[in-house]
């Protein structure tokens, strides 16, 4: 009995907190009520107030905090920037948005669109005339069903990065590149990161040069649900994957970290990677050049292009203010500010053209004819099957690469339908 004392101390403590806690709506982040409560004061001045909640990952938190300050001085609406791990943003948003308590906006890659639309958690965005200023890639990537599903702000893609100390001339085909690399650095002629789950993203520039795009495209340039990587081009590429493994270009042992380390340690002259690592290379004092990936299969190589942007929740109570923020974010000032803090190529033409960073421009050039990453909802399972099959081929677990490849096509098609 007396014992119950301690067991209930928790309850006692909590009661004390109620006393100081204030009104029931106090702790929730419901910005709607905040806006309503403070509007009385704001009406006199005529300025807006309240706040918007936005989820961003650790790579953009600083940029969006700054952007939020500018937005607040312009409109009076504050931006509550909440940091979350990027892979949690999408899943948490999908599970939390229906409760009406999720954020007003989230920031992420364009290949989330499929999932977000399927779940009905985002609203299309109407930017009016501002749409015209966006680069075609960015616009295409963020368009679904003919509507813009978010505001793109940055574009990035992978390319071939060369250590100029080891090589200054780069041949035009991938076979020649391997031959050159073998003489320079026999251990790793060229490095394309893979790892124990495979990595179809980093192999895609090679695959696309065989004329085996992941999906076929429709008339309007949007992807269809029909796979483009089956048939002969696909099986040819499958055989090439085996070759790459035999030539030690790819290996399950060389994931992201070891790949970066090998390039930093000059154990390879070439690495296929994106702009997220080049600052580190430059910091280490390396002299690098960014080039398009040479073609392996005869056709031009096209990397995937990823576009980053801001999505509007369909369940927000602050849709109007949120739209005002989106219009602001599509403007040149905001895009420039986001570039300055994040170092990614802006999605607005006028700002992108003004970028002087040579490496970034080289990346953009290498991605000029890139393919936007597909955004269909089943994409997550496509990646899994794709990577796993390439892994099986390079590990030698699949005796017949072509057969393994065709089986993958069947499985992916089932997953897309399913």
């Amino acid at each position, binding site marked *: 009995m007396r014992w119950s004392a301690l067991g209930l101390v928790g309850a006692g403590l909590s009661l004390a907190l109620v006393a100081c806690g204030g009104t029931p709506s106090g702790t929730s982040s419901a910005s709607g009520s905040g806006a309503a409560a403070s509007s009385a004061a704001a009406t006199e001045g005529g300025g807006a107030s309240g706040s918007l909640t936005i989820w961003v990952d650790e790579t953009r938190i600083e940029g969006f905090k700054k952007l939020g300050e500018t937005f607040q001085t312009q409109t009076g609406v504050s931006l509550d920037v909440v940091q979350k791990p990027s892979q949690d943003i999408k899943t948490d948003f999908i599970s939390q948005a229906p409760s009406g308590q999720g954020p007003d906006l989230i920031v992420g890659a364009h290949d989330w669109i499929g999932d977000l639309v399927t779940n009905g958690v985002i609203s299309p965005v109407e930017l009016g005339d501002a749409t015209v200023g966006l680069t075609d890639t960015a616009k295409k990537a963020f368009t679904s*069903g003919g509507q813009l599903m978010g505001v793109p702000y940055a574009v990035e893609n992978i390319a071939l990065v060369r250590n100029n100390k080891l090589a200054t001339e780069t041949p035009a085909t991938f076979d020649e590149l391997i031959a050159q690399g073998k003489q320079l650095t026999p251990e790793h002629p060229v490095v394309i990161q893979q790892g124990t789950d495979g990595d179809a993203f980093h192999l895609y520039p090679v695959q696309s040069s065989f004329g085996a795009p992941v999906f076929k495209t429709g008339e309007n340039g949007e992807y269809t649900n029909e796979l483009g990587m089956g048939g002969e081009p696909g099986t040819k590429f499958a055989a090439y994957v085996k070759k790459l493994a035999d030539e030690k270009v790819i290996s399950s*042992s060389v994931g992201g970290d070891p790949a970066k380390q090998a390039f930093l340690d000059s154990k390879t002259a070439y690495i296929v990677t994106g702009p997220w690592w080049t600052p580190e290379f430059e910091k280490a004092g390396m002299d690098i050049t960014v080039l398009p990936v040479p073609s392996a299969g005869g056709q031009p190589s096209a990397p995937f292009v990823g576009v980053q942007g801001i999505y509007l929740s369909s369940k927000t109570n602050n849709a109007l203010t949120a739209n005002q923020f989106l219009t602001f974010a599509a403007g040149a000032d905001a895009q420039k500010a986001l570039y300055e803090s994040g170092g990614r190529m802006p999605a607005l033409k006028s700002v992108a053209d003004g970028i002087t960073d040579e490496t970034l421009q080289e990346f953009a050039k290498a991605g000029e004819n890139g393919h936007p990453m597909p955004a269909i909802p089943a994409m997550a399972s496509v990646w899994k099957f794709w990577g796993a099959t390439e892994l099986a081929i390079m590990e030698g677990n699949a005796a017949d690469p072509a057969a393994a490849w065709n089986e993958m096509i069947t499985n992916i098609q089932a997953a897309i339908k399913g």
Partner: protein
Amino acid sequence: MIDVSDLSAKPQLSHARDLSRPGFYVKLVLMGLVNAFGLYGIMTSAAQQQWWILGFLVASLIVADYVYFSKRAIPAKYLFPGVIFLIVFQVYVMGSTAFVAFTNYGDGHNDTKQVAITQISKTSDRRVENTATLPVSVIEKDGVLGFAVIRDGKAEIGTTADPLVAATDAKVSGQKVTEVPGWRVLNLAEVQQRQKEVLELRVSLSANPDDGWLRTDNATFAYVAKSALVYDQDADTFTDPEGKVYSADNSKGSFVASDGTELKPGWRVFTGLNNFTEVFKDSRLTMPFLKITAWTFAFAILSVVTTFIFGLALAVLFNDPRVKGRTFIRAIFLLPYAFPAFLSALVWRGMLVQDGGFINKVLLGNAHIGWLSEPTLAKIAILVVNLWLGFPYMFLVCTGALQAIPGELKEAGIMDGASAWKRFIHVTFPLLLVSVAPLLIASFAFNFNNFSLIYMLTGGGPNFQGTPVLIGETDLLISMVYSISFESGARQFGLASALSILIFVIVGFISWLGFRQTRKLEEVL
């Protein structure tokens, strides 16, 4: 507040009810707080119309008062707090998971039908291509909202009821209408305050509805929009401009056209036992499923056995006062437990890499062993890593439990001249088993569902070839569930939950059997 000093007190007939005892007052104060807490909750939940919470609070409050003020129900006094937490945060969570198993909850079906209809209507009300945007101001008269726009350089106004008409006497400054006689132009804060109305406002361009209407998303510009899909409430269908009809399929939870195309999103519906049977339909999964089941049992049992034997051996060896520096030695043994497990799994994964991993390269002198890619080796590697992660727990538990072995028994053993080993096997070990056996069962159940270890170490690989989903040699049943319901197409919470329940039934049954054994064990001693 706890009074433990009166063990030797005189016989008392009426215990905590005795007004002279401090314990009674402590209880009174605490129960007062509990009642205040409960009543506060009852009042707010009534105000919020949360009837389930209200009912639960009333019931628990009555039980609490009965339990703590009655002379009977003594065991309940000790069980009540833990059980309350258990019910709210475990049983309830279990229940709601079980509920999901009977629905199609998942990607594309995550809310109610009404929400789906709203969302479809909302996204289909879209801008007409190649139309201009118009600078807009929101105006108000007698509570009715309207738009004042500038079209072709002239001001026009309109409301939901009245299509756009020219407003010749409106004042324009810059790009915006700033004054309309008889109307009030709302400022930013007012627009924000009534944003829901502003967003829902549609002003027809003309009397002909086919011309479309004006809407705004940001109160800065308006655009011409038309609806691509029209909802007919009576027929429960959506119709697009070409006349294609999408009708509601309430067993599937989506609007489907006759050619099979679906509108997104759908909604949540009950699907009965579908989720429970679906996975058994694909015959290509049978062999892998049996293999995975066998490995799951092997993994769970071997993990318990290895960690327990290793932990127990260390606990016994270093429960010896002659060993100097035991505090330090034990602390080192505990180190693997003190680091976040996901970090350790990552490091092990890196060390086990085939080419250039620490184990192959440094420990085994440039060996080329596929620790994570060769099926048998991968299984061994997982068991070793799990031993590393798990033995400190067993070590700690055994060290604690060893203290309960009464000294007399050991003394008796020594008197008999039994060897240390025999003494251990016949006296210490059975006694120890009584207290740790339930933990071994719990540890079995934990490892049976040890998703995170597999996920982080091998991801289930090496994969089986020729299966329609990505599952592999080292997958456990639970990671297979993950693979099937989340990684092979859209995420299907309903399916995942149904399969989890099946696994739970298996583990629960085995544990129950094991538990009955421990009871026998207890009776023997």
